[in-house]
């Protein structure tokens, strides 16, 4: 599995553990669906909560679909380098300007994330311990400085790009040619999905 992901399994699990609680948290509200008159319900916590079978079904439905979505997207993002993802978007006829914008953001995201974590480290090493919402002003000033630095960086980057002959379009990676293996895997999974839909109800 980790070969197919092109990443260690532990990285995959770590990514999933960050996102999954949110999915389960939202799904947890599903069982409280309105109970119809006469519908039987199971008492939980000594009758404090009444949950119907339909509610449990709704929870399982949302939680499983949500979890599968997270698995699939995590596998996609770990196995596919971002420039190939962008080439794929071009293949899907996403406008070129949007794809160059996405390429640009992705490139600077990590630069600015590092900048943000340096600012956080500097703040914390000066003894800041925010616990209450009215202390958010400190975060506001940090984000403000980050914004100014980002804008100034974008001006420098733009000047540098112009001086290297930038004319409004970014060079894009080519989509790698599909191999026979890719076709085989796709056909296999599509036939599993379609036959599950046809024969299992």
């Amino acid at each position, binding site marked *: 599995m980790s070969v197919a992901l092109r990443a260690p399994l532990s990285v995959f699990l770590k990514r999933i553990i960050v996102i999954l609680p949110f*999915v389960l948290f939202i799904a947890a509200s599903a069982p409280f669906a309105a109970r119809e008159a006469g519908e039987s319900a199971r008492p939980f916590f000594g009758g404090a909560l009444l949950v119907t079978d339909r509610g449990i079904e709704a929870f399982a439905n949302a939680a499983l679909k949500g979890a599968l979505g997270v698995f699939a997207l995590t596998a996609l993002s770990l196995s596919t380098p971002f420039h190939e993802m962008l080439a794929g978007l071009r293949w899907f006829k996403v406008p070129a300007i949007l794809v160059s914008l996405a390429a640009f953001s992705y490139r600077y995201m990590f630069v600015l994330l590092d900048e943000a974590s340096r600012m956080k480290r500097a703040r914390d090493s000066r003894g800041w311990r925010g616990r209450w919402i009215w202390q958010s002003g400190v975060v506001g*000033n940090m984000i403000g400085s980050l914004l100014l630095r980002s804008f100034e960086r974008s001006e420098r980057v733009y000047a540098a790009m112009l001086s290297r002959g930038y004319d409004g379009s970014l060079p894009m990676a080519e989509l790698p040619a599909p191999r026979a293996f890719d076709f085989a895997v796709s056909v296999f999974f599509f036939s599993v999905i379609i036959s599950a839909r046809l024969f299992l109800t």
Partner: protein
Amino acid sequence: MHIPDGFVSTELSVAAFAISGAVAAVALKKAGKDLGEKQVPLLGVTAAFVFAAQMINFPVLGGTSGHFMGAVLASVMLGPLNAFIVMLLVLSIQCLGFADGGLTALGLNVFNMGVVGGIIGYYMFRGILAVSGKSKNGYAFAVGAASWLSIVLASSVCAFEIALSGTAPLKVVLPSMAGVHALIGVGEAVITVSVVSLVAGVRPDMLHKQMSEARA
């Protein structure tokens, strides 16, 4: 507020993709016409900025924390359509690169945070500004109130979408989403106001041109 896969009905996802796609087409056309190629580094870096800013948590109550959305901030700085493009970029990259928010729900997430948060947030800002007056305090009030409203409105729309799809009843999901975000919105407002006043003091030329006219 990122909706994962499997929480909303197919009809709603398709409708949201259609609306968000149409708005994206208009916004991209306008962005191309207005500033040309200079727009790419500016919008790209702003999207990267919003992404990084969302990683800085702010405190809420007794050690819990929320994070910044940045839709109203982007629209006050760049105008509503550019803010929409920025949110579109942030959400697409979070979805494709980090599995945050589902692929089938991307249209809805862009609708909630780009259209409701960014575009409607901007017009709420303009509306409040017309009432609160263009003094320094009136301006700050309009920025703060619009930020708070954008968070509460976007999270309520999100709750409606989940309820409309039959995943959870409205009377559970709306109070919990709107209640939590009424509090997170206060942080958003405090941060947006302090960021905008910092920028207005240091680099007033960076505010959206209608904004700098409004201030003058």
